[in-house]
């Protein structure tokens, strides 16, 4: 029952049981030789109840922990990894946007120019689309699938036109 003693210590100051501090008129017997015999008995009597309460508390805590695990908070490592990958996708998107702006639209609009514009717009949209789609579609799968697909996207979506410096 060291717990109880610890609890008691938390509620008192060191030296509280100094006999010189006992107020006048309070019988000294309560703190005397009978206390050590009584305390374990009382503690034992209580501990049955306490044990039941503790068990209940533990059950509730376990339930809570299970619920928290089920609602799947990302671990901090996974969160940082997602952040880094998200940053890469953001950079890719910026790269594609820059490559889009480098494209000089011919003065007369032809079908070829139009389709080229559509194609370049799609290229800009590809990175965010891949990122969001991966997060959506891998919800029901494991975290491993999510990272696998995000890494594949990083390999596929490299903005080569921007990196090479052409149009």
């Amino acid at each position, binding site marked *: 029952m060291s717990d109880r003693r610890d609890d008691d210590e938390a509620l008192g100051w060191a030296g509280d049981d100094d006999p010189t501090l006992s107020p006048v008129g309070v019988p000294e017997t309560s703190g005397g030789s009978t206390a050590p015999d009584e305390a374990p008995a009382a503690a034992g009597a209580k501990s049955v109840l306490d044990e039941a309460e503790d068990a209940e508390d533990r059950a509730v805590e376990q339930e809570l922990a299970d619920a928290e695990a089920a609602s799947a908070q990302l671990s901090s490592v996974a969160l940082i990894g997602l952040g880094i990958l998200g940053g890469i996708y953001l950079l890719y998107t910026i790269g594609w946007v820059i490559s889009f702006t480098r494209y000089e639209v011919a003065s007369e609009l032809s079908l070829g120019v139009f389709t080229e514009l559509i*194609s370049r717009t799609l290229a800009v949209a*590809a990175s965010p689309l891949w990122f969001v789609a991966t997060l*959506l*579609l891998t919800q029901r799968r494991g975290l491993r699938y999510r990272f696998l697909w995000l890494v594949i996207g990083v390999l596929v*979506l490299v903005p*080569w036109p921007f990196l090479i410096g052409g149009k």
Partner: protein
Amino acid sequence: MSAEALPQKRGFRTFGGAGWTVAVVFAFLYAYHLWGGIANLIGVLALLNSVGSSGDAVIWTLVISYLVVPIVVYAAALLVGRTLRNGERIVVFVVGFAVVSVLSLSLAAV
């Protein structure tokens, strides 16, 4: 475990009419890119003929990859979408369509 109402094993057999409709509609969309690749191939052939050279390996690799990209991405999207719901398949095909543009532009930039 994750898909409650869905059959355990999902594949092309569970596509159903709606699934195949989605696949065919996107096949036409991807075919647009494929025509671009074929047109490019014909253009390069005509150019090489007019110059009188047979072209080097790099050119042929680029031209053929440009042609093949839509087919490869479509096949990949079809495979990935195999185990998904129909709405999710549409998402995969849309992303794939954008990816074709990405790869085509990347190849064109080389």
